[in-house]
């Protein structure tokens, strides 16, 4: 299974160099590992431990505290349906219910083909666009039942590949300055806001 690639190891070293203490790189490098594999593999956590100067158990223990870090595989697309107060008032539980039927899974589960994971999310700071849904942390909303179906269809057909990279990829822009030996960086593609 996947260790951090040589390029990502190099990148990880550049990340820890940004901080006064190596351990501060732990969470950013966990994100880097998830961008590579979609979740945190055992091997990646061993690499991260070495880079940050802690034990693999500490990496796992820290990662387990955070909702965005997964130590088990998740779908290529992770749906987060917000059901918090503003979204609930706009019918979020009806939309979540619909999502469960459409995907045939409950929150916290992944479809058998590994395409979709469904999560009931807390407020995503998109409350003016309730019901707010994120796919791999890209915002969609307002979403009703039909909107959810369209989203599933579009993702399945690959029509959203440009806006929604596979799970784990957060910022597609990387810090350029002050990173030893790292020149290339992709610029953010079209705004989705």
């Amino acid at each position, binding site marked *: 299974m996947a260790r951090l690639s040589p390029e990502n190891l190099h990148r990880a070293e550049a990340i820890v160099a940004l901080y006064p203490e190596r351990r501060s790189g732990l969470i950013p490098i966990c994100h880097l590992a998830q961008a590579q594999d979609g979740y945190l593999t055992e091997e990646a956590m061993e690499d991260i431990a070495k880079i940050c100067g802690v034990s693999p158990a500490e990496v796992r223990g820290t990662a387990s505290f*955070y*909702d965005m870090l997964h130590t088990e595989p998740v779908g290529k697309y992770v749906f987060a349906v917000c059901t918090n107060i503003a979204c609930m008032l706009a019918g979020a539980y009806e939309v979540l219910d619909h999502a469960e039927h459409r995907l045939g899974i409950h929150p916290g589960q992944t479809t058998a083909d590994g395409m979709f994971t469904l999560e009931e999310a807390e407020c995503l700071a998109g409350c003016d666009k309730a019901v707010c849904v994120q796919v791999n*942390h890209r915002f969609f909303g307002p979403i009703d039942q039909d909107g959810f179906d369209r989203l599933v269809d579009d993702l399945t057909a690959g029509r959203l590949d440009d806006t929604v990279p596979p799970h784990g990829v957060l910022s597609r822009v990387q810090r350029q300055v002050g990173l030893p030996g790292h020149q290339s960086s992709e610029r953010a593609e079209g705004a989705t806001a």
Partner: protein
Amino acid sequence: MLTDAPRIVTARLEHADSHSLERYLATGGYEGLRKALSMTREAVHDEVNAASLLGRGGAGFPAGRKWSMLRKAPTSYLVINGDESEPATFKDHLLIERDPHQIVEGTIIAAYALGVDKAFIFCRGEFALGLERLTQAVNDAYAHGALGASIFGSEFSLDLVVHPGAGAYICGEETALLESLEGKRGFPRIKPPYFPAVIGLYGEPTVVNNVETMSNLPWIVLNGGAVFAALGQGSSTGTRLFALSGHVKRPGWYELEMSKTTFRDLIYDPSLGGGVRSGHELKAFIPGGVSAPWFYPEHLDMGLDQDAVGKAGSMLGSGSIVVMDETTCIVRAAWRISRFFHRESCGQCTPCREGSGWIEKILRRIEDGLGREEDLELLLDACDNLAPGLTWPPKQTTICVFGPSIPSSIVSGIHQFRDEFLLHVKEGGCPLPPDEVRHV
């Protein structure tokens, strides 16, 4: 009253490319920084004091005073809180995605005033686009000479790092945020010390300020603290970015002059909230995020004023207002809010960890028709364990104020709508209609 106060933090947002360096420079960007660098550090600090700029993260502490508390030490840090996750709050999200350079410029100005050469912006991990925009802004600011060594040819240097969060509400609490930034679990630290300005990141003195607080600084430096302080009233100076959601016609963000604008203006003015959705009327509203006690129609004419709202037993908090019309089930609303607290409790303190779970379960059973009359006292008792005496502001028995915030909505609900709770018990279920999906 709708005033003609200038838009300070959202001035640029009508432009689709408001996040780009080109647009930022074309609209006065980095001029505040240039001016600050021509002043002494003390003079910049004086302007912020004169502005009486209150922190926009929720606690409303004056920024200038916080800066004065920074302990003298060889190394100190500035950390910007962009973890915004208080339910119904979405103003920092907007500023991060749409005007990241303004945050960067404000941060550089603050770092200059504080004499700090290393700063971090902690950005909520779920803001993928926001992280892209902030990172791009930092890259561009370096290329432009606004960051790095000898900024704009001055003797001031600053390194600024964008740090991604990983999904945990509690990391918005400043000491939990610092733990997280150190690569650990986001456990709030035991107080005292009460302020990271004494012991903060890596044990060094650290100022933690909110994203919106920073966004005000370029304008304050350019226009003068006194001009800022002339807006608003009393201690609530300047404008503030309010997030309006729930059962209103026009949910969204509105930058308004503090104090002089009222809740009624915000909710009902046709150019703002536009009123409660058609055919419905106001039942209750939350004035400052779900940690705040609720308000009712009789509070509508109160100004958006930190002191006034505080005196009336609630808080302006994170500046987010949730409107609930007469179809809203109070039990269900209180249940959902307590569910949030239960899911997000960090688990260090027993009353918070266990209490939030009990409260969620009891409210659920009332909503499902399995409640008993005694459950109301049971709920209030659990709340009393979290905030003894159920006063406002709450008394604290826990490591952070997350725990004592849990009772707000439950106590509000029971006090104002006791009959609705009892009706659930009597009728064996919820007497109100289910939530209606907002179709688009």
